[in-house]
């Protein structure tokens, strides 16, 4: 069964897999998480504002993103981003966007919808009395949010946000559909070049498993440590 399993092909392609592939995957995960949390928090504030002009577009956006497959959204943005770029820069031709920038925009905007729902739950978990107390002290809405509500909401939601980041890390493999060289893309290119599909895909699965498993264990540990005792 594993008699002709070629470990050497994995060994030889390690630099390519990790320097090229994993760097892309990790950078994409980190930046999309950061961007997604910022935009997601803004969307959550919009949804909770109670002002229909803000609530409705935010809700529509989040529900749209949550009801279509990620793969379809990757295709959408892959073709749409150059046109939006052209519209913003007012150039004559659709803007040429690099693979990384295109993926980053896609993942940030898509994950923002999911981070929005997490942050919304986090904000709603703060007792209403705190809002009232801050207002009674004469604090404005931005000050209340920035100094009272959001720091606690964020802290309460850190484990969930990190779990979502692990999901995002796994989802980055889907950039395969637009032929980008992330970790899986790199593995797949070597696999097809050398005709070593068994070795490369098995190895890729192991690497994803080890990283995701270790990360989810770390999150569980963190969750126990930072849980607020009430």
């Amino acid at each position: 069964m594993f008699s002709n399993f070629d470990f050497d092909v994995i060994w030889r392609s390690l630099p390519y897999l990790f320097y090229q592939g994993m760097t892309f995957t990790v950078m994409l995960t980190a930046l999309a998480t950061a961007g997604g949390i910022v935009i997601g928090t803004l969307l959550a504030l919009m949804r909770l504002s109670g002002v229909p002009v803000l609530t409705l577009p935010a809700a529509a956006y989040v529900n749209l993103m949550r009801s279509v497959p990620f793969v379809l959204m990757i295709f959408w943005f892959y073709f749409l981003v150059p046109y939006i770029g052209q519209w913003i820069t007012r150039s004559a031709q659709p803007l040429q966007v690099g693979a990384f920038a295109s993926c980053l925009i896609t993942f940030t905007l898509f994950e923002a919808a999911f981070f929005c729902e997490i942050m919304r739950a986090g904000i709603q978990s703060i007792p209403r009395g705190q809002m009232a107390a801050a207002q009674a002290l004469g604090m404005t809405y931005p000050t209340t949010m920035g100094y009272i509500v959001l720091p606690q909401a964020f802290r309460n939601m850190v484990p969930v946000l990190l779990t979502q980041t692990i999901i995002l890390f796994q989802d980055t493999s889907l950039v395969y559909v637009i032929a980008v060289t992330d970790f899986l893309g790199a593995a797949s290119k070597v696999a097809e070049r050398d005709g070593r599909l068994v070795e490369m895909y098995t190895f890729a699965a192991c690497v994803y498993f080890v990283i995701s498993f270790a990360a989810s264990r770390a999150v569980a540990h963190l969750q126990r440590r930072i849980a607020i005792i009430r």
Partner: protein
Amino acid sequence: MNYHWNWSIFWELSPDGVHTYFQTLMLGTAWTLITAACAWIIAFALGSIVGVLRTTPLAAAVWLGDAYVEVFRNVPLLVQMFLWYFVLPEIVPGAFGIWLKQLPNGSFYTAVVALGLYMSARVAEQVRAGILSLPRGQRQAAMALGLRLPQVYAYVLLPMTYRIIMPPLTSELLNTIKNSAVALTIGLMELTARARAMQEFSFQVFEAFTAATIIYIVINIAVTFAMRMLERRIAVPGYLGFKAPAAGH
């Protein structure tokens, strides 16, 4: 934007020479729904078994269930699809591998198995959480009445569990439908793949993807609505989310 819109493209003949683009999208929708439905049956059945295993008093069963969930949850679905599609036929004994490779509609069966097992880990999480949310007095009372362990689950714990976890199961069902799009990477011509093919042949990128997006939204709304009806019928009286039947006529 200097994009040339052409919404009548849907009524033009696709390169297969038989169907219009609209019809190819409908065929894709059918494949999406069939794949998701078959995968959901696997996910629901296996997920229930694994979820139950993880709440039994048997340490080995709990360990096995936990390991199952960790394996299927920590490898991306796309990689799992590749493992089933490219790797499995190579590592099984020769004749069986060849049979697997020559299987008609191989990408469909692979997608169903891969998606079903992937989602079963998520269903198992929900089933386990549901069982653990029940007051432990229910299990103890059932044991005290002399029911054996399988009976405790079949007659006492599971009927309550399924009624409680309906809302999260609904979102896992919706996830199954959405995740079936990943199967386009192994050649299943489901809805997203059809939209992509339409874009490649007709160059009407945004019409094709708009149509696919609308179809997914309609499926989403229909499934959500149907599940809400079901949820309302089977909600447990006394729990949050239960709405008492309207009084009077």
